[in-house]
């Protein structure tokens, strides 16, 4: 017996017990090693097409069930969720495409917009900041809690609240903490009787630009995209290459007119644009035709075809990365007394960019 098959069988046993049975990984590793040794004493011939076929069928079943069926079991249970718009109105999410937008998806698909544009906003990670305020009575206890917290997480910090928390004022206790550390800090501080305020920051190039919360953002969405955003997409055109910007939230950051002129002649909207023109979506307009739908490109005037109308309606309906969900919340700034930019303003300035 070569190392090949016995190792495979060991790996198979290990990965099945880890990923499917759900054993703790060191135990799964031990199971795998044991299986390797056990099968190593057997001899399986690679000369029989029958044994090859059996092995391949086994692998095919593992692959199909381990990746595809497991994912669909989990994702088929997705339901409507409650969310709220930027003005605070609550509604059920996702919203199925209405009116022209229903037909626009087919135009988007047919013309392969997904070859250059993705529809998925990603984030790089989430960090939390914790602030605390202590009064005269509990100041010593809070100060002690802070130093115990830092000792507990094994991190050195020589700034702000660690040196001395001012009495009766909010001050940052920890910045850039992960969820576990932030929870710990909150528990330590609460136990010592301090008031606690937590700020949640999502970082990532794709998200809204914000001076403090996310300095490097491009403003393509308020949160990352998740599976529930695509409940009504047939199929979700996630795309894998961004030769142009992400479109998951395009409806929230542009206008119908801008999209029309971008489709007709991208260079007129943005100098040096490499996006191909889509003149086939437009008809030449007569000289005497007037109206809102007429678009000027140089001397020639155009009017959109039905395809262009529905495509733009579809694009304007794409606002998925805009509404907070339980599994994809948006930034939650400090609510306490220290001066901070108001969240609504921050979001508005991000959207403007």
């Amino acid at each position, binding site marked *: 017996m070569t190392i090949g098959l016995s190792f495979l069988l060991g790996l198979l046993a290990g990965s099945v017990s880890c990923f499917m049975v759900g054993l703790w990984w060191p135990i799964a590793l031990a199971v795998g090693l044991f299986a390797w040794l056990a099968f190593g004493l057997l001899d399986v011939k690679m000369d029989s097409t029958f044994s090859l076929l059996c092995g391949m069928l086994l692998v*095919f079943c593992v692959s199909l069930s381990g990746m595809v069926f497991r994912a*669909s079991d989990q994702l088929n249970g997705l339901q409507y969720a409650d969310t709220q718009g930027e003005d605070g109105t609550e509604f059920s999410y996702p919203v199925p495409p209405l009116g022209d937008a229903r037909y626009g998806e087919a135009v988007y698909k047919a013309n*392969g917009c997904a070859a250059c544009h993705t529809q998925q906003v990603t984030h790089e990670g989430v960090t939390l900041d914790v602030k605390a305020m202590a009064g005269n009575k509990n100041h010593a206890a809070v100060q002690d809690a802070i130093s115990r917290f830092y000792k507990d997480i094994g991190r050195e910090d020589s700034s702000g609240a660690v040196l001395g928390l001012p009495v009766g004022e909010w001050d940052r206790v920890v910045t850039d903490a992960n969820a576990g550390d932030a929870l710990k800090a909150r528990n330590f501080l609460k136990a010592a009787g301090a008031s606690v305020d937590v700020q949640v920051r999502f970082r990532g190039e794709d998200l809204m630009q914000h001076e403090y919360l996310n300095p490097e953002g491009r403003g393509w969405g308020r949160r*990352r995209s998740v599976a529930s955003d*695509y409940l009504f997409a047939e199929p979700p055109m996630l795309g894998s290459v*961004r030769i142009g910007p992400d479109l998951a939230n395009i409806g929230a950051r542009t206008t119908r007119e801008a999209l029309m002129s971008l489709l007709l002649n991208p260079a007129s909207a943005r100098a040096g644009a*490499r996006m191909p023109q889509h003149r086939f979506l437009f008809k030449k307009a007569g000289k005497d035709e007037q109206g809102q739908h007429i678009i000027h490109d140089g001397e020639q005037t155009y009017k959109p075809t039905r395809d262009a109308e529905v495509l733009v309606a579809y694009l304007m309906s794409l606002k998925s990365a805009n509404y907070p969900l339980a599994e994809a919340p948006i930034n939650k700034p400090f609510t306490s007394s220290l001066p901070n930019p108001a969240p609504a303003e921050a979001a508005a300035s991000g959207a403007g960019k």
Partner: protein
Amino acid sequence: MSNEPIEDEAKQDPREAVDRSCRGPVLFLGFSAVAWLLVYSLFAMLAGVKVHAPGMMADSAWLAYGRIQPASQLALQFGFLVQLGLAVSAWILCHRGKTVLVDGGYLVFGGMLWNTGVMFGFVGILIGNASGLEGLQMPGKVLPLLFFGFVLVGLSLVQTNNRRTDEEMSPAQWFLFAATLWLPWVLAGSYLLIHFFNAKGVVANVVDWWFIRNFASIYLTFVGLGTLFHFLPALSGCRLVGRGYAQFAFWVMLLFGSIGGVSPGAPVPAWLPALSTVTAVFYFFGVVAACVCIKQTISGASVEDNADGTAYDLMRLAALIFISISVLNVFFAFPGPGATAQFTTYGPAMDLLFNLGFVGLTLIAALYHIFPRLAGMDFCPKMTGVQTMAIILGVFGMIPPVAFGGLMSGDATLGFSYYFASLGDLLLLVGSAILFLNFLGAILFSIKNCDCLAGICCKGEKKETNA
């Protein structure tokens, strides 16, 4: 020249009989593959031009970038790679098993179905019936046609393998046998899940990623490796060293190549990208084993027959490309580097390098060796030299600039590297056009010289020369 009476020769050299059984079917598949390569390079160049000149061809919908780009991918993968892969597999399985091709007619009929399917898919994408999924861009209705076409070809290949003279199967046979069975399985699985059971939401994307992963990491890789495992020893006249390594590679790559392919940060449950990283790393162990096997086989060996020099060198180049891509792939499978490369033009450029640089070059090299044995006459040597150079320069002209440009400029921007890429596209177009003409010319010439048509055109003349 094969002007001697064929029956007698078959008795002298069994290889000739094997080649004679392969002749029609393999050349048919090979020719359609080469024709699709020409179609691919033409449309890839058009797609590249669209990036430089946004206003060009903007009045016809079927020439939109988003249509010709996926259509060209279809022509490359399903038209060129799969068909040439099948042709080469058929020939290798015959020669390894020392048997004639069983039911060669299935190969021709299946090949016709497959070609019809690819044609419908290609036209379907151009007229706007694309499915919107990345790996299976063609309209869903085409998939059953492709499936049955492949199954017919596969039936012939599996029967041929079962009729082998030696009981022992060599690594080349395992890999080609597995590839032949695997593609119809994943094709049928994806079709049923996406179009028949109507996978909703991102489940369709998960199935699509699963297909892409299986198609590249199993089907194409196994065809490429199987071809290398046959030809590298065969051309240098030595035996394949390290059967155990090959066996290890086979199973590890099969298990871990069939799972994964989900990019970090995709809008799916987080275990899917994590699982993909894990499988990419384990898959790499299989690749290392395969590379050890290849390295041990070719070290110190040199090509036996100088006529195969080009084929042997091309295969060594392809093996080198395979190793480089595998190392890069496992590096970029980790979330950190992966996030840098994600959404940039690096990803598609690497896929293209894999498709053309590894699988494509391997299969073209195999074609150089097979063709003269089947057609009875060689490609024109001058044209072969030019086309090989043009294809290699084209691959290296169109891919690295886009890949590095993508890594350096990030996503949502396009560097100036696209100008270099168009030069590569042009070279590839020239190379594939010469290959097509070369193939066509040699076939026409050999048909003219062949006994089968001799009665019609120049029988008398030939008898004189024989005498």
